[in-house]
């Protein structure tokens, strides 16, 4: 095998891998993108029933109701709200007044059925999407950090960080 042929083989293999990977990526990414919407976004756009997406915002104070393994709560961006139901054990850091990201689908009755509620490792953490949606809704206090800013604007009482 000459050098030239080998180079051709290299290039061929590379192109094949590249082409294969592109095909894989293109077919996979279309079906598997999860869009993130805030409650306000949902009033502005139609989301097909059954489409999976992420809903994020703050857990409204006083909205958490537990009924056995099923939990109902309200996600708010302080302008609009969406009721959510979730079956399972909530992440340890799930708390009223805290930022939350849930994944699931919207029912025809406007109730969001969450298949998962994202857990955070850090109680001061605010998901960037939630921070952005709070900025858009005008309830973000500049100069304060993450969760604290949002919690202050909802009047969170039992917040312990900072």
């Amino acid at each position, binding site marked *: *095998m*000459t*050098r030239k042929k*080998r180079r051709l*083989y*290299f290039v061929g*293999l*590379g192109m094949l*891998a*590249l082409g*294969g*990977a592109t095909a*894989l*990526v293109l*077919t*996979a*990414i279309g*079906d*598997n*993108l*999860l*869009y*993130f*919407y805030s409650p306000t976004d949902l009033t502005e756009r139609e989301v097909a029933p059954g489409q999976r997406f*992420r809903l994020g915002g703050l857990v409204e104070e006083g909205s958490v109701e*537990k*009924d*056995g*393994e099923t939990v109902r709560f309200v996600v708010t961006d302080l302008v609009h709200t969406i009721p959510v139901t979730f*079956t*399972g*054990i*909530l992440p*340890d*850091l799930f708390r009223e007044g805290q930022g939350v*990201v849930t*994944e699931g689908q919207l029912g025809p009755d406007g109730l969001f059925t969450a298949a998962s509620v*994202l*857990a*955070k*490792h*850090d*109680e*001061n*953490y*605010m*998901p*960037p*999407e939630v921070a*952005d949606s709070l900025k858009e809704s005008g309830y973000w206090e500049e100069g304060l*950090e*993450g969760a604290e800013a949002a919690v202050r604007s909802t009047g969170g009482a039992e917040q*312990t*960080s900072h």
Partner: protein
Amino acid sequence: MIPEIGHYALALGLCVALVQAIVPLIGAQRNNLALMELSRPAAVAQFLTIGVAFAALTHSFIVSDFSVSNVFQNSHTDKPLLYKISGVWGNHEGSLLLWIMILAVFSLAVAVFGRNLPPTLRARALSVQAMITVGFLLFILFTSNPFERIDPAPLNGRGLNPLLQDPGLAFHPPMLYLGYVGFSMAFSFAVAALIEGRVDAAWARWVRPWTLLAWIFLTLGIALGSWWAYYELGWGGWWYWDPVENASFIPWLSGTALLHSAIVVEKRDTLKSWTILLAIVTFSLSLLGTFLVRSGVLTSVHAFATDPTRGVFILLLLAVTVVGSLSLYAWRAPQLKAGGVFAPISREGSLLLNNVLLSTASATVLLGTLYPLFADALNLGKVSVGPPFFNAVFVPLMVPMVLVMALGPMLAWKRGDAYGAARRLWLALVAAAVVFAGTYVAAGGALTDVGAAFGMGLGAWLLIGTLVEWAERVHLFRVDPVTSLKRAAGLPRAAYGMTLAHAGMAILVMGVVGNTAWKGESIQVMSPGEVVEIGGVAYEFRGAERVEGPNYDAVQGRFILRRDDGAVLAVMEPQKRTYTDPPMPTSEAAIHTDGITDHYAVIGDPSPDDGPGAFVTRFYHEPFVPFLWYGALLMGLGGLVSLTDRRHRIGAPTRARARTAAPVGGASARGAAR
């Protein structure tokens, strides 16, 4: 006083690093041995200054000096000593200090153990290492000073995030960093080789052990993180394709490719320019990993509170590294002499295929991880890319790789006989078919089980194929056992390393496939006395009680785990803890393992409406999860065994002599003339 000494040592370290970055480089260009030799004492001084800084911070944590802001934020007097120490790197500033501490250790290792390296290569490699140190020291000193004071000093600290107060996570970041930073060695040697204008077998022999070391740490670090997520987060999952996980997995993929292409450079003196590129890319991906974790630009289930301005600095550092090294690559790589030719079907060919598949996998995972960033920047909406995408892309790339993994080692260098190798693997094929049929029938024979059974068969193919390759090497059953034993003792350790690592991969594949396919979960409210059956076992709830830990209160559930026939397997006591400082709840799952299957119990919140003493409970049936840990450990062990191969210790003395004696020709002479 001690924190100030630490801070001062860091500043001093910056000066040393600047000298170490500039002087040896000039020395190497002018062929001035005295200037080049300066790199070694400089590396020692570098290690000492950063060591002092690291010791100072550790001291502040151990004595709980809350006048240091970092200690106040992340420690507490009630915390056990282990977590006071792990608190040093359980935060942004301290973890960066650990980063450069490890970098300094690696530089020291080159200075001390690199005696028989060609002096110009050593000087240049150390200089590149120092440049990385300069970048990170500037970052620490200007944006993330770990020694910042607060006045007046608070009486007690805020405490470490309780999720991090865990032995698994105490050692996860250092392991991961040892891996990330270890790839800086391959990077420094690659850049040094580009400046020199030559790459040969001796170069590869130097780079391989460092890459291997980094790879071992990264492998074990990722496994440790996965293990921690599995038992600590209480969801019974070990991999989520989460951005932070991907950040460590992407460099692992390209590092694994580098490990294999370096073999080709060493044995066959070819694929040189590709290997250099991989070395550069792997370290850049490690930097990117640090960036992704530390900047918080991506939503992640693992995300910690972070500061975006720091992210900009790391991004800048990343840009300088990538643009600088790739420009150098574009300029110098064409001058590298091409090596020997080989047929597509040969050992080299199979290693090349491994490289193509691993790099493609690395690129697709990177794309999926960064896609939300691009989409946001281009105003395509806020999106996230979930596990289905990664599974759909990653699995098809790994299937051919595992298929070829058994075949490749059977092929000869230069020109192999694929048909012959495949024929010698008949046993592996039979094993794969048996496992496929066996798991298919055992799983119930549904159409959906075909994929899983195929995956298990694939694992068996690789496992048996790897063992067959070893058996062939020792002529098992073809000569008398004593001769075989002698041959087995005479095999190079690197060969054993490969056998172990590939077998580990096979077991890992089975663990991943088996768990993904046959995992089960059950969530319910249980009153004391109730029984729930899942995965062939029964959990009987015996109520819950309050217990007190050193720095937490907990509700502890009690479950009796029984087999089908009623025999008691274990008493499981999962806890839901509430830590006092900082006040934060965590779930401690109870796991009972029989070595093949894990039974996993979590206790949730009380549910008084459903009766007195009722609790939400959750059970997982986790088949084959232990295989993941066996596989990862075997892979790490394989790396370790390979690392002890005498070839790696001896280095390349002949070349070192030749190079000091005769002036270097070709590209490095051109380099010196610049």
